């Protein structure tokens, strides 16, 4: 098996905790990343880079989903199409 070992249960929980703290900060600061830099760095240090990417995508998805639930679906405007 190539590369590093998979995170242990303790490492997973530490990563998830750092992620949750970062997300809570973002939630309370309207997604202003500048206000949550320290927690972002902690999050990135506790989680494998692949997981950081995965969780970033997940957060985008959850926000999009919430937007759909509250605002409804608005198809993207396509210029020049009927």
């Amino acid at each position, binding site marked *: *098996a190539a590369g590093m070992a*998979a995170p242990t249960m303790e490492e997973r929980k530490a990563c*998830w905790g750092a992620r949750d703290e970062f997300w809570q900060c973002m939630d309370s600061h309207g997604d202003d990343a500048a206000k949550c830099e320290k927690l972002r760095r902690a999050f990135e240090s506790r989680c494998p880079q692949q*997981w950081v990417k995965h969780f970033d995508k997940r957060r985008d998805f959850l926000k999009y989903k919430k937007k759909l639930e509250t605002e409804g679906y608005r198809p993207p405007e396509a210029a020049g199409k009927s």
Partner: protein
Amino acid sequence: PEAPGLPLRQRLAVAGAVAAAAAAGWLYLRQQKERQRRSRRLRDLRALALGRGDFQLRDTAGAARSKADFLGRWVLLYFGFTHCPDVCPEELEKLGRAVELLERDAALPPLQPLFVTVDPERDDAAALARYLRDFHPRLVGLTGTPEQVRAAAAAFRVYVSAGPRDADGDYVVDHSVLTFLVDPDGLCRDCYGRSRTAEELARSVRAHMDAYEPLPP
């Protein structure tokens, strides 16, 4: 001279009997409908024949395991990988809790929790053993060559797609998130997605076990 018709007591008795018969009839029809729904679903699953093909894999002790090794037992099977960010640990916890709930009932047949990796390149026997230690004690982990793993996933129509590697060679594997219930004849009876809770899993497995009839020889 008596009033025409039956006295009140007898009329009540007749009304009561009619009501009871109607209720019994309604309950019977509802039960029939449920039975038909279950048998239709079973027919669909049989037609799909998920997991009918054999698999050739290895457990964490290095021993060869095939489908035949698990016949005669109910199996709850999950496909995942050890480098999984969140979904696999959650699903395995859920699977373990469902098995625990059912273990409490000594009258039920034994249920074998099973994990098959979709990342054979990294998940060798040692990696699997390390990972599965944190979950149900009877959880068996299987790995193999990429071809063997691909065949096993294909038999259950499980989508597997390894993502691009980063600078450290790390990657995630995108895959269907499903827990399969396989009966003692090796047939898939049901599959459960992320939205089902451990309690719902246990309830469903129990219902399948209660309704199970072995295939005729």
